[in-house]
């Protein structure tokens, strides 16, 4: 489960946003929503592995979509093809796939689109897909092409209006009850608002984020207040059902 992979490419597709592509060898079978812990450096600074959701997996390659945030992602962005990375994967829960003919919506904010794009890749035919994705400002079309192409309905917003509609993505979704399933990933504030707006919380699947120490359930660092009990995002999540969490 903790093995070394070779980088095929690691390129910037937008300001501070990169796609990391690894040779899928040794072979990993990961599902949408699941993630990998990546050891960035062959040293102890940075100390911890960093979590990233699967963005795309084929029999040949594994892809991640990531944004440079701090030291770890900065150093990651400097890696090049043929460099090797140790990766702990696959980890965590996945988005359950819908049945044929269901009507679903996919709601993504910022880098939260990564696991959702992977979900799109694997949806069975016949599913009616409504995609809503929001960014702070203009991003490259490379980031949302997959959503536009695969969705029956597609809407993009930016907070500054530089592309798509101006505003927050949730303001453009009127009726949430019409969907059989709602898939979401993005900033916690977005997830919270969404959770509050969805009546039947069992339809809602959200992917959570919290700082992770280990990714496998041994540090108890990745806590999220659950309905009944503490959720540990790396094990009980990152994908949880709306009924499991408690945003109050």
């Amino acid at each position, binding site marked *: 489960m903790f093995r070394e992979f070779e980088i095929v490419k690691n390129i910037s597709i937008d300001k501070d946003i990169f796609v990391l592509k690894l040779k899928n060898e040794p072979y990993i079978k990961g599902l949408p929503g699941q993630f990998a812990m990546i050891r960035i450096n062959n040293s102890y600074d940075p100390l911890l592995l960093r979590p990233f959701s699967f963005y795309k997996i084929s029999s040949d390659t594994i892809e991640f979509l990531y944004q440079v945030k701090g030291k770890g992602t900065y150093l990651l962005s400097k890696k090049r093809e043929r460099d090797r990375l140790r990766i702990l994967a696959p980890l965590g829960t996945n988005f359950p796939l819908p049945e044929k003919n269901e009507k679903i919506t996919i709601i993504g904010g910022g880098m939260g689109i990564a696991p959702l794009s992977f979900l799109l890749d694997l949806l069975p035919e016949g599913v009616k897909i409504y995609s809503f994705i929001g960014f702070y400002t203009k991003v490259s079309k490379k980031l949302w092409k997959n959503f536009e192409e695969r969705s029956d309905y597609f809407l993009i917003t930016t907070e500054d209006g530089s592309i798509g509609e101006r505003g927050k993505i949730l303001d453009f979704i009127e009726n949430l009850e019409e969907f059989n399933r709602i898939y979401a990933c993005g900033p916690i504030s977005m997830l919270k608002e969404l959770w509050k707006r969805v009546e039947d919380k069992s339809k809602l699947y959200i992917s959570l984020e919290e700082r992770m120490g280990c990714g496998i359930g*041994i540090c108890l660092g990745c806590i999220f207040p659950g309905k009944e009990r503490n959720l540990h995002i790396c094990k009980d999540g990152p994908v949880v059902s709306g009924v499991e969490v408690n945003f109050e």
Partner: protein
Amino acid sequence: MNSNLKIQVGSLVFKNPILLASGTSGFGKEISQFYPLEILGGFVTKSITLKPKKGNPPPRIWETYCGLLNSIGLENPGLEEFIYYEMPFLEKINTNIFVSIAGESIKEYQELAKNLKNLNISGIEINLSCPNVDRGGIQFGLDPDILYELTKSIVKISQKPVWVKLSPEVGKIIPVVNLVKDAGAEAVVIFNTFLGLAIDWKERKPVFKRIFAGLSGPAIKPLVLRYIWEVYEKSSIPIIGCGGIMEFGDVMEYILAGASLVEIGTANFINPNIGKEIILELENYFKEERIEDLVGLAHKRKEVSL
């Protein structure tokens, strides 16, 4: 298995000096997906309390340079769930299992010991050093009277080997380890985490709600080694070294400085295979020599030329 790695501490024999530290591998199930825990010299459980404990609110961890600050706050399922859901798994592992206990009062510690008495475990590690809770924990470890009474009564009640895990906050350590020894503990565990602090400077506030948190990881190794050295020089109680062990060479430093066993903590997060990997390296290195003969060896090889 390489018998040169065998080592006795108090009344117990360990197949090698590598244990996993409390709170850094839960109750063993996760790590057992990486390697069979029975290859370990021993395993220390996450500290358990009498009642279930939810622990502290997020954020609970924060990275520092070569270090990890944590404020988990002893989240654990409590004694009862531990016995029903975790013991059956632990019981079957063919190595020394230590249950770490933590309480908010002497009575709670005693209650825990009473209930563990009939379980198939090797011993009890008394956690007197958790920096992340309000009551009990570290304060107990700093009060010589409580320390002595508590240890003594747990030894008596449990009728099993007892280890006491100390905090670097103890300051002058020799009187403390001597107390612990007199109270009947078979070894001291040096150390739990160091008190540390981080500021989220972008947010302009302390990272943790409880302000202070516990520092672990490679950063602290030279600080802990200093105490290992001192205790080995001036006391005769066996030492379990813990703090910042990442690699084989770190284990060697601890052993040579005077630790009989070591506990690996934070390194499990960075590499869940680390226990196994270090044991393999030990097996390789100790082809001819016995590890027992290296415990404290550096003390004989100091050239004091001041």
